[in-house]
């Protein structure tokens, strides 16, 4: 075999090794398979206050907000107002045709509740997902949501 042919053969082996090596890294993390960013638009359809105080939006007050997602799916948010000024804790679930993503965390601009919270996990195509969910306001009439999966 000439040195040229031998070099070409070795290069093919090298490419195969490269693919195999990186493929092995991919397989080690299931969430990596779904690495992506989803940009969604939600329109609020229901807002249910769960108020203990007469004024509303006071510490201990809560609400559930439901929204329809453009293109299919819906989003549910449950939030409780913290005793800290302008702060609320929220759990948000985005239900899409391919599965669910659940996020949880604190917003420090209540009652608007805009910002970034942690994606804890998911189901279906999002099983084992980790990442972040950014919203322009969990209880807003129109909301932009960006889900970033690692």
């Amino acid at each position, binding site marked *: 075999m000439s*040195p040229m042919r031998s070099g070409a053969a070795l290069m093919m082996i090298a490419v195969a090794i*490269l693919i195999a090596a990186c493929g092995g890294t991919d397989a080690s993390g299931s969430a990596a398979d779904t690495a992506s960013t989803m940009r969604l638009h939600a329109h609020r359809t229901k807002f249910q206050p769960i108020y203990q105080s007469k004024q509303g939006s006071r510490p201990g007050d809560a609400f559930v907000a439901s929204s329809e997602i453009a293109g299919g799916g819906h989003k549910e948010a449950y939030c409780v107002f913290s*005793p800290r000024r302008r702060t609320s804790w929220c759990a948000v679930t985005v239900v899409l045709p391919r599965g669910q993503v659940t996020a949880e965390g604190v917003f420090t601009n209540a009652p608007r509740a805009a910002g970034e919270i*942690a994606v804890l996990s998911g189901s279906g195509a999002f099983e084992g997902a980790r990442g972040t969910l950014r919203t322009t306001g969990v209880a807003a009439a129109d909301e932009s949501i960006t889900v970033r999966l690692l």
Partner: protein
Amino acid sequence: MSPRRPVLRVVAATVAAAVVTACGTTDSSKSGARSDGAGPRTLRWDVPAPGRPGIDGNFQPIFHGRTPFLPGDSYIVWNNLPGGSHEHIFCVIARQTPRRTFWCTRTYVTRSGQIVAAGDEQPTGTLPVVGGTGAYAGVRGTATDHLGRHGGPITIRVR
């Protein structure tokens, strides 16, 4: 030296460089902000005794009857932590007997991002860390909170 040796060396060097480059890139895109190349990380706050209610923290009961802390009741707590961070705890009481079961979620808000822990509040004070944002996006680990009337330590271990 045979003509094959230089070819072999070049190919081997190319493969090694390509594997390192390609796999390094994949790693950093997967880990995103969470790794910082740091691996396991420990955060610890030594929290002093609670200060003035409403200034340094507060406890807000969400009780449904005259008797407090019944199953179905809940509460939300806020504590300022040293260094400008703060902690929020939201708990729902599942049962009091024969064994206390409080389902709780704790969120630690730091300058670098949030860390979320959730689960059954045990006497050990340890809950699993289930996620985070910013520098803590995608983290897993444990959060141990021993805050009492006289303050105490909070230790978070994540990777």
